[in-house]
């Protein structure tokens, strides 16, 4: 990386950048510019997040009182099914890789675009096509199988709604994910600018790389699973449905072989974002670059070996359960290495308590809780009691929602100046953070308590002893929602009324900060050569232009 940052705001001599270089909706829908594709993904992902979030508020509203008085049991089942399916398939999987990943990857590599720009566009359109199927299911009343589609209920055993359409939607979405992963792997291998060695790759890209490997290896298995389930429904092939001679536990093996690694597709990019934000906003070189890079790969690899921890009480053999439990502890090791390395990075750092750092610190707290509670679930003996209780719900919302979402928000704020060329209002952002953080923890922490005391999940009514925890959780969820709307509000406002952002507001040294804010269409105005590591900050540098 060159030692001088670019001055000035986001336009080249002709005054154009990737946002205004071409105009009209067709120039967006048929773009092959990775930055525009990333922005389109961001808009659609956040829209689906809103849809999934509203469904969640419906669930939480029902659970405010012990009686099932707001919705019928059947409607409630459809609410949480669609909430889960939308959140997992439409939001969390593309949340960071397809949005921030698409935008930032070529910039951090110092190159023009991804390896296959047209394939990148195709990935986006395939995503939208898959989403259309799920939206159709949503509009026509949904399905009530749970997002996990367990047989025999989902194979013609009485499930309501358009199960086959939902399966088709998820099947199509899988291809979007595979093609994006394929694109990113080739890009990282073949399109690095001179000087960007593997040892100088920003940790965000190591994370994206490991994620992409999982996407390519695991997603086809869910594809064939959903495909077989479709035929189980239509033809009665008899592989998963016991009434037809099949094995329902076999379905769960098929399902979780993908669905466990996919949580690392969600989490690894989040870890990548945190590696970027925790360094730049504390002006410290990352503690343990090699450990963090290697742990990303280790998590991806180990993540493929442990899917049976979702199936301890399913009917799989006890011996299998025991071995899966032992292996599951293994994945905690590289994850803990990351967490401890980030904390060590902050130590004696020059920490800037801006919005990005607040979300980063929130992530560390939240992911610690999420990860540690995972240990109770990994342990076979305790999981027998906790399985299908709210403890599980709280655990995965802590890692998925708290982990991935907070990292997404941190990343959005961190790269907001680069993407939009505008700065957001720090004061409003910090106030919103308080609402978001309090609301989030109030929503999900009580669920650990309710769950460990026995409250089952996926029930629209419960016994009165759990009422307090549910009321706290519901109040928290609406607070959280309010906070997120505040975030949306000031971010949108910044697009129209925000100050113009300099090229390098945070003083970063990775290559994306050499591009203008927003970048020109071809990313850089000339050839790029990398001469430093991504966290080799000069001593006590002050960021150009703004003091954040």
């Amino acid at each position, binding site marked *: 990386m060159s030692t001088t940052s670019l001055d000035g705001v986001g336009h080249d001599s002709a005054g154009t950048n990737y946002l205004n270089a071409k105009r009209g909706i067709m120039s967006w829908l048929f773009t092959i510019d990775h930055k525009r594709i990333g922005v389109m993904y961001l808009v659609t992902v956040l829209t689906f997040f809103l849809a999934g979030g509203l469904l969640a508020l419906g669930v939480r509203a029902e659970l405010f009182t012990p009686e099932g008085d707001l919705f019928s049991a059947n409607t409630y089942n459809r609410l949480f099914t669609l909430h889960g399916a939308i959140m997992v398939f439409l939001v969390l999987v593309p949340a960071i890789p397809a949005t921030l990943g698409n935008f930032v990857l070529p910039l951090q590599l110092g190159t023009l675009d991804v390896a296959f720009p047209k394939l990148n566009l195709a990935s986006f359109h395939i995503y939208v096509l898959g989403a259309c199927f799920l939206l159709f299911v949503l509009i026509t009343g949904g399905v009530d199988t749970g997002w996990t589609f367990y047989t025999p209920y989902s194979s013609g055993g009485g499930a309501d709604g358009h199960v086959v359409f939902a399966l088709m939607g998820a099947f199509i979405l899988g291809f979007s994910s595979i093609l994006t992963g394929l694109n990113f792997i080739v890009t990282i291998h073949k399109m690095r600018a001179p000087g960007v060695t593997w040892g100088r790759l920003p940790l965000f890209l190591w994370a994206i790389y490991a994620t992409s490997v999982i996407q390519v290896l695991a997603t086809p298995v869910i594809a064939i699973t959903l495909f077989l389930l479709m*035929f189980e429904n239509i033809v009665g092939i008899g592989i998963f449905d016991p009434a037809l001679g099949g094995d329902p536990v076999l379905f769960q093996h098929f399902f979780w072989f993908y669905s466990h690694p996919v949580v690392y597709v969600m989490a690894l990019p989040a870890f990548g974002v945190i590696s970027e934000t925790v360094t730049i906003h504390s002006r410290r070189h990352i503690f343990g670059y090699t450990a963090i890079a290697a742990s990303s790969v280790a998590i991806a690899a180990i993540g493929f070996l442990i899917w049976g921890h979702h199936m301890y009480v399913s009917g799989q053999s006890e011996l299998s359960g025991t071995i899966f439990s032992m292996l599951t502890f293994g994945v905690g090791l590289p994850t803990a290495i990351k967490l401890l390395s980030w904390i060590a990075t902050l130590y004696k750092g020059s920490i800037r308590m801006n919005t990005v750092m607040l979300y980063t610190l929130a992530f560390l707290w939240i992911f610690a809780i999420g990860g540690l509670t995972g240990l109770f679930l990994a342990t076979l003996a305790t999981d027998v009691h906790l399985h299908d209780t709210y403890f599980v719900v709280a655990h995965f919302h802590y890692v998925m929602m708290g982990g991935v979402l907070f990292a997404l928000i941190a990343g959005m704020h961190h790269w907001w100046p680069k993407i939009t060329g505008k700065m957001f209002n720090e004061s409003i952002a910090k106030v919103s953070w308080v609402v978001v953080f309090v609301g989030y923890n109030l929503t999900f922490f009580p669920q650990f308590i309710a769950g460990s005391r026995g409250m089952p999940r996926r029930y629209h009514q419960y016994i009165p002893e759990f009422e307090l925890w549910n009321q706290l959780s519901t109040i928290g969820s609406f607070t959280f929602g309010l906070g997120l709307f505040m975030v949306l509000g000031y971010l949108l406002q910044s697009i129209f009324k925000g100050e113009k952002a300099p090229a390098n507001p945070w003083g970063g040294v990775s290559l994306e900060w050499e591009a203008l804010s927003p970048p020109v269409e071809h990313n850089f105005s000339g050839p790029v050569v990398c001469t430093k590591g991504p966290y080799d900050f000069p001593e006590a540098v002050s960021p150009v232009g703004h003091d954040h």
Partner: protein
Amino acid sequence: MSAAAEHGHEHHPPYLAHHFFNMNQQADSVKMGMWLFLVQEILFFAGLFMAYIAMRYIYPDTWLAAAEELDKVMGATNTVVLLTSSLTMALGVRAAQMGNNKAVAGWCAATLLGAYGFMIIKYIEYSHKLHVGLLPGKFYSFEGLEQAATEAPQIFFSVYFMMTGVHGLHVVIGIGVIFWIMMKALGNSFNSENYAAVENVGLYWHLVDLIWIFLFPLLYLVR
């Protein structure tokens, strides 16, 4: 970009995409992408093989009895047909490496003959099964297997049709892309540095062959 400057001349033929520096980078990237695509194909078919393994483990006697209803001669013929088409495809890639467009088109045509041959034999097999009721799941109506000795024979045929059906779909897609390559060759598109498309279609076709290499003994030669 700096790498092009090293070459000493701005060589950017029309078949080199603007975001690549040179043909080697482009060809290597496209081939790596193709291998990654093949990886996901392998994992896709892995699910079908897993279903086979599980169901065969649960119903071993059914497998022995039901597999007898498959025509081994047709299966073996199809194996030879696909292996031969793999050879012709590989020779087509070789011709492309040598810049011989006419030969590429010819070898593609030969490969297509093999692919069509495969589909015709498949059609004969499938129509026979349709005729006698050897069909998957709820459509199974064959009376010829001793029901007392075997249970759930329809599951064998579910697995058979899912595996050969998905494989057959991939053969049809293969026919499409090989035809496309043949047309490009007839238009003299390829030369000894620009042949990646032929190579990658070849890789796809070899994978289709690879899958059949495993399908054939597992479905047809159960004893």
